């Protein structure tokens, strides 16, 4: 079963995404802050990480960096989710090792498409 990790501090968003993913047959792990996200990623090694940028303790960018630097987790595709939609934000995300970027608010369809696109697209 494919595991997806959600890193998001808004509980409602977390809840609806979890619901959607579980309905679609994914196993979901979640956390609401950056520090835990790094630890959790290393512990559980999910197949995909959905990462919000504005999260407490450590922001999404730093989390991504940490994940990439950790040999255990560096292959995991990371999809940034953010209200920030500017080109610089997207570019920065990509530079830090993000595989994709989805802008809030997104529809269920958008999200699923994005996940499908990035699953299996493991980074070398």
């Amino acid at each position, binding site marked *: 079963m494919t595991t997806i990790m959600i890193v998001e501090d808004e509980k409602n*968003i977390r809840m609806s995404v979890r619901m959607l993913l579980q309905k679609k047959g994914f196993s979901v792990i979640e956390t609401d802050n950056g520090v835990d996200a790094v630890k959790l990623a290393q512990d559980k090694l999910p197949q995909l990480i959905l990462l919000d940028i504005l999260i407490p303790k450590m922001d999404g960018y730093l989390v991504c960096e940490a994940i990439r630097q950790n040999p255990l987790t560096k292959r995991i595709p990371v999809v940034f989710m953010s*209200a920030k939609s500017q080109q610089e934000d997207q570019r920065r995300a990509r530079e830090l090792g993000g595989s994709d970027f989805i802008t809030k608010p997104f529809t269920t369809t958008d*999200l699923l498409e994005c996940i499908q696109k990035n699953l299996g697209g493991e980074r070398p």
Partner: protein
Amino acid sequence: MFRSIRHKMLAAFALVLLIIALTSIWAIVNFGNLQGDIQDIMQSNYRSVVAAQHMMVALERQDSAQLSFLFSSDSNAAQNHREHEQEFVRWHTRARDNITEPEEPDMIDQIETLYGEYIFSFEELRQVQEYKGSSQARQYYYQVTFPLFESIKEACRGLLELNQEKMLQLQTQAEERASRAIFSTSLLSLSAILSGLFMALYISGQVSRPIGDLIFKMKRVAEGDYQQQISIQGDDEIAVLATEFNAMSEKLKRYERMNVNKIMMEKQKAEAIVESISDGVMVTDQNHHLILINKAAERFLDIREKESLGRHFLEVINREELFRMIQEVPLQRGVDMSKKFTDLTIESELSEAPRHFRVNMTPIRDQQGTDLGVVTLIQDITRLVEVNDLKSEFVSTVSHEFRTPLTSMTMAIGLLKDQTENQQTPDQQELLNALEEDTQRLTRLVTELLDLSRIESGKVQMNLEACLVDELVTYSMKPLLVQLKEKRITYTCQIADQIPMARADKAKIAWVLNNLVSNAMRYVPDDGTGVIEIKAKEAVNHIIIEVADNGKGIPEEYQKVIFDKFFQVHDQHEVGGGAGLGLAICKEIVKAHGGEIWVESGPDKGSVFYFTLRISSS
């Protein structure tokens, strides 16, 4: 003294002439005297000498005659004697006529007396000869005649010698006179020459000095020094000239002062105006040296006018980018520099926050078009920037705050719809749809607000590059092709041949086209008759792109305001989803590309939206 130069000169010349005349007169007098002397010598005295000589000769002859009478019984002797007597008398008369010396009359009288006796003695001699014989006659001769003869001769000789002496005396006198005359005349001539010379120098000096002074001072006045005054001496023409010159000089001085005052006043007025301008004003000359800084500029750039004037720009203001602009400005001929500006941020110690300025430069050119310098205008836009920053922050925060709940709402609605797909009542279905619509609307509004805000503040960078027009259109339309097919709208694209490349930000223009076509799609019928056309062609110095539809058109009163924020044409049949910002954003994007956007439309005539793009120069 003398009223005019003419008189002065005439007087001087007259004096010289007088001296010459005197010298001449003196010479003439001397010549006259000499002539007199010579005359005396030549005439009277000489004549007396000659007379005396002749008298003596005549007498000698007479004596000879007497002797021959006595000793040779010459019969002609008496006649001879008589002839010579006549001659003697003749010469004696001459001598008497030529009396020049005071002793002469007595001498001549004596001669006459003696001669008379002599003549008588001859008669006596003849008597004696005749009556007493030769020896008695001879004796008579020796006793009477011969002494008489000797006396007369003596007397004549005396006369002769007297006159000769006189002649000698006169000659010496003449010589003396001559040498005296030479000396005195030389002296007089010399003094005449010297005085003439002196006169010449003096008079020429008198005339030329003031003239020279005048010339010198006039030169100075011509050069602009109006302080010159000439000292006036006398009252001749030159004095008059000098007086007039002084008057003129004075007038010029006053006139200049008046003008200078006027100019000073104008200058002060202009300076006061510049000083009071609340924007910073700076002027540099052709060599980029600062020639003017007003108070505001001093404050903004933290420099002092006193220390900065005359120095090179970079010495005073260490801003490379500004200096580069100043250097470029004169080269931009024909470009309206008032539209170009550069933004400058200065961190100064005086305020905590950095201050922001908008700097604008314009060249200063004279009528012939030569560059005289550059005027730099510095506007303090710190407040504006602050407000803009606040706005951006606000919008950013707001949009983020909105987007977060919108995300969960969107997700939740999607999930609900999914979960209850076949189990909803018509009412529930309708409600869910409504929820979905409105969340979409809110989402769109938030996005568009954010975009618009960013574009308006100039925060969005337009990445302008050369784009192929057909590529641009294709790229923009790709996401819409499916929808177009679904709505059975006929879509055509006509791009002119040989159309040049456009200078555009591909993504942004794609957004514009997308928006325009999306709008069109909402207005055309979806029964298969709908037509949307995209055309592109080249105009004078830009490219025109148009999006035409055969929808219901836009009433004329709305055509101007349609590009305003939040404006929407109200229509019950309209499918919702718009927030009224789309066209406003299109306008901002097109403006940022240096183009224009407008619409041509009429009710039930369809609409054509036009916008222009610059031609790429590369």
